[in-house]
């Protein structure tokens, strides 16, 4: 039950979204809607080759196209030393190439024209001569001795290795495996996928020559960090941070894809600085899929050691991570494999060891998230799949095996073998709830009957634990900037407020949920709390919105800033009520004198007094700012159960039912949380069954348009069934955990486990996602059960 009234709409109310009125009327302001006087358009020439020397770039014909004003090449940028830039992982990547291209669709040159039609014609007219080089596509080939070295720009580099990272007790784990009664091992590949937000990436760069000020409207999830990156990258050409303003306007979905700095942004900025006019660059869908950062591409080998009774004793995972030609992941600096070390999952695993090797190939750079906290989906998939492999080996029901190994409620806070301290959880309750809701026992009975008739039906479970809300600044930074986040609240004289945050919503509904946090803490109706984000000139510095960190970090900052305001409000109230502060009690929206309920002052009265009648010696005004450094991450969790039916003729998998029980602690807006889970489940189902980017041997991308990159429609998407348990985070100011990505993490293993379960009686132990009809059909045929 919400504590606040329907008027205040604090936490727990399913408040209708405050941002919706503009979106519903077509009045959102996305990057491509930004139109500035004299604005020029940029379009990009891209490489048809995955690896080639650039012999020449001829621009004469392009410059003759009516409307084309300039063609920018790597040579142009090299004059300013802007042809290379750092990635967020302290690697380097090209803005525009001078010597060679490293992947198909890499930026080669940019055409600036008076409109987008002329720019497109210009792109077609640029003539580039290439000299193809040997291509390295398979990461296993890339690490072999003698493989062509791709990063010839790095002096002394003799192989394609990027990093080796490991965590855990190697020898202890090895010993546990040696001593184990049972062991299982499985290769698991999580393919390269793409977030494919419906809005692609783009910017309008507007350099004001007179004032030396650069304003960039940009599809970015992290505007403040981007401003600093721009200042660092272009400081040497005179762009200094106070003269850079990043505005992230409305964003049409981010999911991690709008964290990195893409070459297009930098070229547009350079073009605007050189030409002195605003330059718009908006990539098209194929550029988006073919060149922007990808996610996943983890080749994992997972192993479990256990006792015969099913008690898991150890976990070991070895991974090869394909990063493309540059490590352009967006992980915290100290975590080249992100938070992959949450791979012990929901289980009380005493010994664990994980290692990841990063490798270069001739593919686009990346390794970003796809609606998940840094590599958590990979970790969850590994543990949840291998757990099912173990259940199969032991002939145990996968639910029983999970129940047996779950970390128990009373073990929290729980210190995991790979170092994390899980804040809170009740895994047994979540799984039990999911099993009851879906009717697990009946489904198993139905499955047995169907098997007897030769029909294929499967039930899959996933009991995941996420790790979100980076993060404690002791461990977490991006390019050295600590991963705090911020909120600034100003209460106006009439008791209304404006609240600004260092994050940036891309559809999550911050304008509503942040207002509800302030409403909860101060009693000002959420309707009267104006939330702003995304303009670096006005909002306090923060690290942005990704990895489900907005509620855990910026939301917490909002609550703490509000509490600072409440402290001051108390002093003012004491002054107004002529009472001592100790005698005042706070109930939502007002301070009352203990034992004299009639004597009270509302937050609105107090706010007015803060500007009109504040106590002597106190500064006027009622505002506060908070930079919140979380003491720990939050660990949302859930149990999902999926039921699938398989068409024996075509191999097509149909999700019949999918029950998701989520626990994200205390909830700000139940309607929005449900929406996040619906969306997350759909983005979990997508790579489980449909989406994948692959390359042929020559490095040609397959799946580089919506013809072949299969984003699910309403027809492929099942009607999700949701439920929840509530286990508050003990360290978060209002007990919340992140939720936007839980379902993306939890859904793929549930679906994969269901399909494998449908075929397990035939001896099938594992299928890599995406589980396409053809993959399933091949198995059916091999096992002799195809129609």
């Amino acid at each position, binding site marked *: 039950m919400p504590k606040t009234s329907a008027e205040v709409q604090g936490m727990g109310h399913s408040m209708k979204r405050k941002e919706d009125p503009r979106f519903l009327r077509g009045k959102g302001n996305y990057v491509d809607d930004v139109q500035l006087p004299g604005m020029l358009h940029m379009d990009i020439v891209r490489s048809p080759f995955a690896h080639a020397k650039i012999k020449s770039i001829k621009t004469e014909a392009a410059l003759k196209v009516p409307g084309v004003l300039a063609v920018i090449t790597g040579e142009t940028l090299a004059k300013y030393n802007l042809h290379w830039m750092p990635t967020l992982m302290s690697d380097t990547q090209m803005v525009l190439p001078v010597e060679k291209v490293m992947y198909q669709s890499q930026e080669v040159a940019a055409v600036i024209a008076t409109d987008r039609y002329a720019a497109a014609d210009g792109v077609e007219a640029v003539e580039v001569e290439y000299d193809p080089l040997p291509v390295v596509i398979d990461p296993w080939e890339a690490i072999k001795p003698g493989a062509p070295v791709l990063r010839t720009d790095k002096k002394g580099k003799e192989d394609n290795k990027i990093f080796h990272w490991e965590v855990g007790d190697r020898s202890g784990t090895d010993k546990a495996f040696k001593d184990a009664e049972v062991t299982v091992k499985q290769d698991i590949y999580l393919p390269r996928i793409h977030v494919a937000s419906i809005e692609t990436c783009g910017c309008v760069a507007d350099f004001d020559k007179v004032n030396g000020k650069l304003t960039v409207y940009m599809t970015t999830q992290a505007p403040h960090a981007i401003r600093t990156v721009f200042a660092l990258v272009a400081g040497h050409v005179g762009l200094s941070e106070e003269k850079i303003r990043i505005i992230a306007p409305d964003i049409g979905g981010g999911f991690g894809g709008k964290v990195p700095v893409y070459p297009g942004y930098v070229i547009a900025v350079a073009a605007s600085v050189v030409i002195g006019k605003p330059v718009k660059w908006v990539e098209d869908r194929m550029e988006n899929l073919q060149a922007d950062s990808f996610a996943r591409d983890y080749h994992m080998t997972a192993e479990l050691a256990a006792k015969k009774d099913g008690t898991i004793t150890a976990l070991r995972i070895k991974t090869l991570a394909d990063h493309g030609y540059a490590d352009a992941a967006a992980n915290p600096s100290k975590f080249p494999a992100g938070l992959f070390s949450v791979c012990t999952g929901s289980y009380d695993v005493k010994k664990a060891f994980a290692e990841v090797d990063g490798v270069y190939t001739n593919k686009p750079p990346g390794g970003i998230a796809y609606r998940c906290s840094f590599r958590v989906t990979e970790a969850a998939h590994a543990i949840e799949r291998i757990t099912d492999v173990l259940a199969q080996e032991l002939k145990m029901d996968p639910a029983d095996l999970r129940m047996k190994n779950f970390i128990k409620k009373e073990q929290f806070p729980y210190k995991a073998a790979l170092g994390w301290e899980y804040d809170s959880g009740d895994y047994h309750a979540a799984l039990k709830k999911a099993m009851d809701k879906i009717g697990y026992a009946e489904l198993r009975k139905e499955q047995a009957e169907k098997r007897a008739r030769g029909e294929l039906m499967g039930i899959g479970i996933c009991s995941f634990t996420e790790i979100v809300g980076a993060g404690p600044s002791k461990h977490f930074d991006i390019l050295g900037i600590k991963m705090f986040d911020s909120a600034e609240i100003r209460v106006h004289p009439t008791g209304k407020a404006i609240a600004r945050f260092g994050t940036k919503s891309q559809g999550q509904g911050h304008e509503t949920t942040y207002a509800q946090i302030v409403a909860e803490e101060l009693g000002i109706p959420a309707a009267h709390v104006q939330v702003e984000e995304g303009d670096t000139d006005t909002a306090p510095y923060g690290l942005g919105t990704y990895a489900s960190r907005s509620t855990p970090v910026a939301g917490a900052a909002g609550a703490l800033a509000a509490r600072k305001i409440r402290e001051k409000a108390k002093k003012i109230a004491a002054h107004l009520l002529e009472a001592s502060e100790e005698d005042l009690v706070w109930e939502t929206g007002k301070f009352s004198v203990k034992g004299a309920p009639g004597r009270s002052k509302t937050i609105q009265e107090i706010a007015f007094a803060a500007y009109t009648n504040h106590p002597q010696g106190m500064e006027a005004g009622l505002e506060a700012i908070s930079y919140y450094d979380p003491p720990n991450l939050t660990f949302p969790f859930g149990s999902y159960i999926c039921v699938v039916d398989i068409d024996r*003729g075509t191999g097509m998998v149909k999700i019949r039912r999918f029950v998701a029980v989520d626990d994200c602690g205390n909830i700000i807006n139940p309607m929005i949380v449900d929406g996040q889970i619906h969306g997350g489940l759909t983005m979990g189902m997508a790579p489980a069954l449909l989406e994948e980017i692959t390359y042929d041997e020559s490095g040609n991308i397959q799946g580089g348009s919506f013809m072949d990159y*299969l984003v699910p429609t309403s027809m492929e998407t099942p009607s999700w069934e949701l439920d929840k348990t509530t286990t508050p985070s003990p360290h978060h100011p209002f007990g919340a955990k992140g939720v936007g990505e839980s379902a993306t993490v939890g859904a793929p293993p549930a679906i994969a486990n269901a399909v494998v379960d449908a075929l397990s009686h035939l001896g099938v132990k594992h299928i890599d996602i995406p589980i396409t009809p053809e993959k399933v059909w091949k198995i059916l045929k091999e096992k002799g059960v195809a129609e």
Partner: protein
Amino acid sequence: MIPSSFDYHAPATLAEAVALLGKYPEDAKVLSGGQSLLPLLKLRLGQAGHLIDIGKIPGLEYIKEEGGMLRIGGRTRESALERSEIVQKRYPILVDTAKVIADPIVRNLATVGGNLAHGDPGNDHPATMLALGAQVVAMGKSGERVIPIDKFFLGLFRTALQPDEILTEIRIPAPVEGSGGAYVKLERKVGDYATAASAAYVVIGTQGFVERAGIGLTNLGPTPIKATAAEKYLIGKKPETAALAEAARIAAQATEPSADRRGAVEYKREMARVLTGRALKKAVERAGGK
């Protein structure tokens, strides 16, 4: 994605349209629904100097039964076909087909004539028209001619239409007693071309034997495929499980699929068999057989 420059023409009559096609024989394209043509131009995979939009010509969108034939105007939108009462009542195979073409919004512009005239083996109507034994009416400078559908598809993106001809009408024999048809498509998701698809049409005589059979296959070779051997096999047979399965097996032998992201050759060929079996079963059911 921006197309290269072209000139746009909107003739008011068929004769004008044909004359324009004659005037630019090398680089004119007929713009009907535009749902295949415009994406090709936008991706700059195709080029045209002149687009001849037949959208302003009256009398090209109709669905009517006349003279023992269903007559479909060449520019009839897929959505109109799908929602037509007479089609829903008497030609369920056409509803099956229209409903799985691209997506519902594309179908508001996409036309039946365009789906055939594009000559794309991945399009859905060709198989159905092959199964039904349809005819195509083409208008050119020397007037109108009728092309039997099994003489229409000549190669990949190549049809019997002359450069100055416009597909104006599709004619389908009206259903007879004991006839039924169905189209079954396997697609990865809505909006995708078929991994494989099969159209089946049967006429079952009063004695319960197959008198006529039509089987068409989608995206299983460089052209839409008419599975003639399988059709012949069925004639005179009782439409029972074993016979339908054998016909499906024979139909699959007529395919020449190429591997792509939808599947390997072997898979597609097998899908031809499985889907033909299912289409035949449904067609027989609709024909009133068991």
